[in-house]
């Protein structure tokens, strides 16, 4: 075991995957020599050579489009989009191509690629370095969508994503890269080295896609969260002293519905938390599923605590961020309900 930040864990996942499987190639903007603007691919080019890890021109459609061709050839490309906010030029290749290749060719070709991208706010990135576009992927049949909340999962899930035979969108909450973030932006941050999930096994392991983790068992209300918001939810639950069961979804597609439904059946209350904007965010799907599958257990309407339906503002970032207070208020509402 080693203490790792999420950046280090992601780097390590790459190295493990590249070591085990020659078909894994890594590329993207600033990814090669420099090792990525968040340094998630640092050292890979030196270690594995320029044919395994290299710089790409600034063309997200070119990067993903080429990766689809490489995956169809038989490689396992793992590419980085510098910020999720910049994935849109690649969206056609992801949605129309990677996601449907196996289906449309009846298995004659497939596209086992991984597309990594940092998501979420909290770094004063304004509207173009803060987005959480997960529901733009979860709506697309043929894609798997993953968002880790800690170094242990980040490594295990990324290895699983690269090993997966289908395209995986791997969303990295950038605010978690160097330490857990509980939403109290004005308090002193703790580093991953002091968090239990900053303990990361060396070498190979994986965290299977499709299984959620219960981060805090509880009986009063179920909180569904992923990525950064797992930590914020845990902080809110603690601050407001609520006996909540906090579930970290880890993968959105495939979704671990069984764990969710079992929890809500037990608690009878549910709050969904995400940083993405409210309308048609993934929280809508979660609410729709929970009301369907746990309807007769629910004692109050499911609440969603999310980003407001606006672009991510720059200087008002902390007024925008769905922090512990808003979660606390929602918990109070569902517990009253």
């Amino acid at each position, binding site marked *: 075991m080693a203490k790792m930040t999420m950046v280090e864990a992601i780097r390590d996942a790459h190295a493990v995957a590249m070591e085990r499987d*020659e078909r894994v*190639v890594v590329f993207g903007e600033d990814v090669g020599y420099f090792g990525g603007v968040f340094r998630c691919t640092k050292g890979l080019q030196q270690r594995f050579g320029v*044919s395994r890890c290299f710089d*790409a*021109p600034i*063309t997200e*459609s*070119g990067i993903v*489009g*080429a*990766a*689809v*061709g*490489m995956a*169809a*050839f*038989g*490689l396992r490309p793992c590419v980085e989009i510098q910020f999720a906010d910049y994935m849109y*030029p690649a969206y*056609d*290749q992801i949605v*129309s*191509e990677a996601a*449907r*290749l*196996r*289906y*449309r*060719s*009846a*298995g*004659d*070709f*497939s596209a086992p690629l991984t597309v990594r991208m940092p998501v979420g706010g909290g770094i004063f990135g304004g509207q173009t370095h803060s987005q959480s576009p997960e529901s733009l992927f979860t709506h697309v*049949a*043929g894609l*798997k969508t993953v968002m880790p909340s800690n170094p242990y999962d980040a490594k295990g899930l990324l290895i699983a994503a690269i090993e997966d*035979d*289908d395209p995986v969108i791997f969303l990295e909450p950038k605010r978690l890269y160097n330490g857990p973030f509980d939403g109290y932006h004005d308090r002193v941050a703790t580093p991953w080295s002091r968090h239990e999930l900053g303990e990361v096994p060396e070498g190979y392991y994986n965290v299977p896609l*499709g299984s959620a983790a219960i981060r805090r068992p509880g009986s009063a209300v179920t909180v569904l969260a992923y990525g950064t918001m797992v930590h914020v939810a845990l902080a809110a639950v603690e601050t407001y002293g609520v006996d909540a069961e906090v579930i970290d979804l880890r993968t959105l*597609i*495939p*979704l671990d*519905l069984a764990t969710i439904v079992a929890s809500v059946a037990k608690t009878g209350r549910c709050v969904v938390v995400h940083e993405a904007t409210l309308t048609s965010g993934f929280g809508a799907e979660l609410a729709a599923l929970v009301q369907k599958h746990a309807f007769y257990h629910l004692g109050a309407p499911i609440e969603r605590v999310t980003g407001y339906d606006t672009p991510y503002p720059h200087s008002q970032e902390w007024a925008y961020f769905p922090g512990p207070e808003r979660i606390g208020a929602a918990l109070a509402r569902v517990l009253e309900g």
Partner: protein
Amino acid sequence: MTKGGRADNEVAARDGEPLTLVMPGPVVRPGQRPDFSHYGAFAPGAFRRPAVDDSAESMVDLATGLIRVLDDDGNAVGPWNLNLDASSLREGLRVMMLTREFDRRMMIDQRQSKTSFYMQCTGEEAIACAFQSALRTGDMNFPTYRQQGLLVAAGYPLELMMSQVYSNTMDPLHGRQMPVFYSAREYGFFSISGNLATQFVQGVGWAMASALTGGSAIAAAWIGDGASAETDFFSALVMASTYRAPVILNIVNNQWAISTNEAVARGQAPSFAARGRGFGIPALRVDGNDYLAVHAVASWAAERARANLGPTLVEWVTYRTAAHSSSDDPASYRSADEPSAWPLGDPIERLAKHLMVLGALDESQLATLTEQVESEVGAAQLKAESFGTLKDGPKPSPREIFEDVFKTMPESLASQEREAGY
């Protein structure tokens, strides 16, 4: 300084005339006389054949020329004449004729509702058929919907193509894809997407993968004149230029993109091949209705790719004789006389004439060949129809709706399948 400051800096320039735009379109519209004189200037044999390792810069003229081998009298002339042997030429003729006959039958079947949709490549057969003859096993085409000739020339079973068109129980794609959107990995034919241009950059990626793994297979990507305006056409050029990928980038300029003339996508550029100039990619414009020219240029480009000299961009000039698709009627947007005024002729007639000039074909042999082709397609059709058509007979199971979304079906989808109850 105030914002008025800029006014102080005004340069002396012609003033006054209001700005206008150019609105490009075809030279003529329905009811007018077609004019293809801009292609008239290029004589067969007129353009040199550079060494494969010549610089892109040294051959910029070839992007606005027109490489031709067959002249109007059926002779093969000039430096691009590779003197293909008669049996290869006869085989070329045969696969072009097969392709045309296949199209003809499928078009009738579409009218008879045996399929929902069809797209012919009439008049463009030489491009795909001759191109395929320059590829090797393991190479991969990334085609559009009008390169059925690649499959026919590669020997892909016609009954499988038909079954795909019919969406029957022998359809390799299980009825999921629209007609003509074939996929045949083993025959070097990548799954066709309905989204224009996406395949162009995928082809570059495939070629990169081949090179990254030290392989020897090359890729060929295909696109139409209209679709070359699409962004992924340029993603492909960027990626191919940056990494010098072993790929042949083919633009089929058949003069039309549905109702839109090639002038709209081309803009102020003198040709589509000229696009390559900006990327340092050797670019050639070629008579696409000339089997010999296509074979020669395809072989040259393949040789470049295999020799690690990187991508080649080729504009194949042809004419879309038929409608865009079974849903289209060109009468309302282009002159009815265009097909006959088209100066580069018909690829099948031209190759047949050449074979006759060579003494390698006579009228009776041609008649026999025609019969063979018709009966081959007819036999394939009988077989395919026995597995059903969209209209009648057996059909792929509705359970196929749920398969192959993922390698392993997730529970959420399995429950939808259960609910569907198929």
